[in-house]
C-alpha cells in the first residue's frame, strides 16, 4: 500500500537549494526577470555547464517569494508575451550579499583543502 506520494524532485531541491537560491538571487541583481529568462541566464552565464530544471526553478522561485526575498508582477516581454517577472526585495539583496560571502568563503576553503591535499599526495 503506497502510503506517501513519491516526490523525486524534492530531494534534488534540497540538494541544490542553497546554490540554486544564490544563482537565482544573483541573476535578479541587475533587474527583474521571468522564469524562462532566469534559466537562460544561468545556462549562458555558466557557459552551458549549469542547467536549471524547471522542477527545481519554480518551487525555488515560489519559496523565495514566500520568504520575502523576491516579489513578482505580471508584465509584458519585449515580444509582447505576458509573463511573471520576479524582482529582488531589500531583504533579498541582503540575503544575496550574505549567501555570496558565505559561498566565497566556502569555495576558497574547499579550494585550499583540495590544493593542500594535492600537495600532500605529491
Amino acid at each position: 500500500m503506497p502510503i506517501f506520494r513519491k516526490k523525486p524532485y524534492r530531494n534534488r531541491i534540497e540538494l541544490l537549494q542553497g546554490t540554486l537560491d544564490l544563482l537565482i538571487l544573483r541573476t535578479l541583481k541587475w533587474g527583474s526577470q521571468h522564469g524562462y529568462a532566469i534559466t537562460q541566464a544561468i545556462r549562458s552565464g555558466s557557459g552551458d555547464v549549469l542547467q536549471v530544471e524547471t522542477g527545481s526553478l519554480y518551487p525555488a522561485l515560489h519559496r523565495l517569494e514566500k520568504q520575502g526575498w523576491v516579489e513578482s508582477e505580471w508584465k509584458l516581454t519585449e515580444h509582447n508575451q505576458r509573463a511573471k517577472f520576479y524582482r529582488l526585495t531589500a531583504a533579498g539583496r541582503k540575503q544575496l550579499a550574505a549567501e555570496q560571502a558565505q559561498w566565497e568563503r566556502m569555495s576558497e576553503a574547499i579550494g585550499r583543502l583540495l590544493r593542500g591535499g594535492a600537495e600532500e599526495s605529491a
Partner: protein
Amino acid sequence: MNWRNRKDEELDEEIRAHLAMAERDRRERGESPREAAANARREFGNEALVKEVTREMWGWVRAERWAQDLGYGLRVLRAQPVFALTAVLSLAIGIGANIAAFSIADAMLLRPLAVRDPAKLMAVHGVTPLDGFERISYAGFREIREGCRSCEGVVAHRMFRFSVARPQDPVPQVRMGMQVSDGFFEVLGIQPRIGRGFSADESTVPGRDPVVVLSYSYWQQEMGGDPAVLGRTVRLNGIPFSVVGVMPEEFTGMDAFLRPAMYVPMTMTSRLFPGRGAEFFESRELRDLLVKARLKPGVGRERAQAELRAVAAAQAERDRVGSGRRTLQLRTELESRLEEAPANKALVAMLGLLSALVLCVACANVAGLLLARAQARQREIAVRLAIGAGRARLFQQLVAESLLLGAAGGLAGCGLAYGAVRWLAAIQIPTDTPIVLGTRLDERALVFAGLVCLVAVVAFGLVPAWRTVQGQPGSALQSREVAEGGRLRLRGRNLLVGAQVAVSLVLLVISGAMVDAFGKMMVADPGIRTDHVMMMEFDPSLVQYDGARTVAFYRQLKDRVAGLAGVRGVTMARGIPFRPNFTDEPLIPEGYDLPKEQPYVKVAGNMVDEDYFRVMKTPLVAGRGIERSDVRDGAMVAVVNEEFARRYWPGGRAVGRRFRLVESGQWVEVVGVARTAKYLSLMEAPTPYFYLSLAQVTQNRVTLLVETEGPPQNITSALLAAVRDLDPNQPVYNVRPLDSFYAQGVLGLARVVLQMVSAMGIAGMLLALVGLYGLVSYSVSRRTREIGIRMAVGAGRATVLRMVLRQGLVLGVSGAAFGLLASVPLFRVLRAGFSGLGILSAWTLIAVPLLLAALTAAACLPPARRASRIDPTQALRFD
C-alpha cells in the same frame, strides 16, 4: 479555497508563458513550429509534477497531509477491529464518566440562570453572625433599590405555594409559584414566549390587577400549549387571574431545583393571602424575599458592595441593632450556590475526582495498547524510515490515529453519558410541586466533552507515538525481536499497568467507602416509622379559611378518619422529617451561655398533636409527650430531643426547664424528652430538635398521618371521600404512602450517587484488568520463543504457568499496595469535605485489595494457560 484557485491559474499561466518563450526561441533558431513545441515541452519536463512540487511551497500541503493521514488512520483502525474496539470502548467509558459527572455538576452548581448576561446579575443577602443567607424584607428591598446607584436594576422574588384551578377543574391543585417585584422580567432580560410580562402599574399598584404569567411547562402540560391562552382565566387561591404571557422554555425560575408553575406580581400579595398584605409590605422583620441586582455595565462589584454596606448601616441605625450585626452581601450566582450548599460542592468534587481517575485508567489502557502496537509495527516503521519517510511525518500520522481514536471514544462517551443523563433526569423528588434535577446534555457539556477528548489524546497518544518513531531502522530489520528497545518498552508498560492497578484500587477504596457509608445510611433508623403510614397534606388558608374554621376542619377530619375501617391511628403534624418545609426557629434556652456575638440559637422544630409520638413510634425517654390538654389557652409546652437537652442543658434534667421563642417572645416549658432521630438528611450528625403542641400555634399547613392495618395505599379513596364530605373545595396534596416518599425522596438521590460511584469504581477496575490482561498476553506472545526453549530444556507446563502468573501477580499486587498507600492520605482529604464518609472500614481496606488480587490472577490466567500450551517444536520453528 478561492485564493488557492487563483494561485493555481496563475501558476498555469506562468508555465504556459515559459513554454511559449522557449518555443519562440527555438523557432528563431530555425526549428519548425512542431519541433519547437515538442522540444520545449520535453525540455520543460513533467508539467504536472513541476506544478505539484511548486504548490507545496504555498503551505497548503499541511492540511492536505492531515486529511491524508486521517484517512490512512481510519483504514488502519478498520483493519484491526479488536484493537480499535478495545481502545474506543475504554475511552468511551472514561470520557462518558466525565461528561456524566459534568452534567451533574452543571445541574447542581454550574449552569448559569437563563437570563441576559448572567455574570452581571448578583444575589443580595443579609449576613448576620447566625445566617449568611438571610432573606430580605420588602421594605429592605426598596431601600437597596434606592441605595444601589451602580445597579442597573434591583428585583425581588419569592416562591410561594398556592392552589390553582383551571375553569374545568373540580378540585384545585397545589403548585409552587413565584411572586415577582416590578421590573423583574425586564431586569433579568427575559422575553416572554407569547404575550407580555407585567406592566409598570400592574406591578406597583397593590391588589388591583390579577394577572399571571405561566411557565412553559405549565402551559404545555396543563394548557396543552394552546396559543390562544392569553386572556384566559385561572383561579389562584380562589381568585380569578387572567393570563397575560407565557415564559420561554429555557427560563425555569431562579433555582436549580424548584421550578415555579407561574409568576404573579408581588402587588397581589394582599389578595392572594388576605390579611397578610400590610404586614408583607411594611414589616421589617418579615424577611422573605430573595433579591437580585444587575450591575451597570463597566461598574465593578466593589462599588456596588460599598453602596450596599452604606444601605445596611443606615438600616441598622434605624432599627437600633448594633452596627455590623447585619450587613448586605453581594454574591455571584455561583458563589452563593457554592457557599449555600457545601454538601453539593463536596459531592460534585467527589464525582469529578472519581471520573478523572476513571479517565486516567482508560488512557493508560489505550496508551498500553498503542505501545504494544508500536512494537508490532516496528518493522513497518523501520521500512518506512529506511525508504526515506521523515520521523516528523510518521509521528504526525500516528497522532492522527490517536485523534481518530479520541474522537470515536468521545462520540461513544457522549452516547453513554446521554444514557446516564436520561436516567438521571427521570429522577424526581416525589411531591406534587416538582423538584427536579435538570441534568441534560447541552452544548456546554459537548464543549466539555471535546476538551476531555483532547486531554485524553494528549495523555494516551503522544508518548507511544514518539516511542514508535524512535526505533533504529537497521536493528529492527535485522531481527524479529529487538532486545534492548523491547525491554525498555516492556518496563514502560509494566509501570503503566502497575499505575493502573494502583489508581483503580484508589477508585475502589473510595467508592467502597461511599457504598459503605450510604449502605449504612439506607438501613439507618431514621427515628420515625415509615411503614403502614399514609400521608396527606392540607392548607385550608388556600381556600380562605380563617383560624377558627381551620381548627374546626382539622378536628372533624381527624375524627372522621379515625373512624374509617382499617385505620389504627391518626396524627397531625406541621410537617414530617426530611421535608424542609419548616424553618429553623430562633430561640434562647434558659440558663444557656450563648456564645459571643450570638443573640440566640436556631433550632429546627415541628408542631405535632397528642398522637404523634405513638403513631410515628418516636420514643419518649423522659417526661411526657404532647397532650390533648395542651391547648391555646394553657401554658406553652414542648418536647425536646436528647441532643437538644444534652447540648443546651448539659448534665441536668431538661424536663421543667424553659426556652424563649425569639420571634414571639413566648416562654415554652419543656415537658418531655424524645429520642434523637434524623430530621433533614440521613447523613446528618445528631441535631437538636423540638416539638410544640399543634393546638397552641396557628395551624395552616398540616400533614395528616394515618396508620393503617393493611397496605396504606388501600385507604386512599376512603380518605379522599372523607375530605370531600367535609369540603369539596379543600385542596389536598402529596397523598402517598410514607415509605414511598421516604424511598424516593430521601433515599432516591443518595441511591443515584451511590450507583454512579459504584459504576465508576467498577469501570475503573474493569479497565485496569483489561490493561493487565493485555500486557500479560502481549508479553506471552513476545516470549513464545523463550518459553519454547525453556520447555525444550525441560521446564514443565506447571512451571511455565507459574512463571507467567507470577509476572501478572507481581504487577497486580505491587500496584494494589501502592494504591492502598496512596488511598489512605487521599481519603483523609476527602473526608474533610464529605463528613458523611465515616472512616475507612476494615472491610474496605481488606476486602478490596483481596478482591483486586483475585481478579488480577483471573485476568492473568488465560494468557498463562496459553503460554503453558506452547508447543516447543512449533515455537522454535518461528521465523
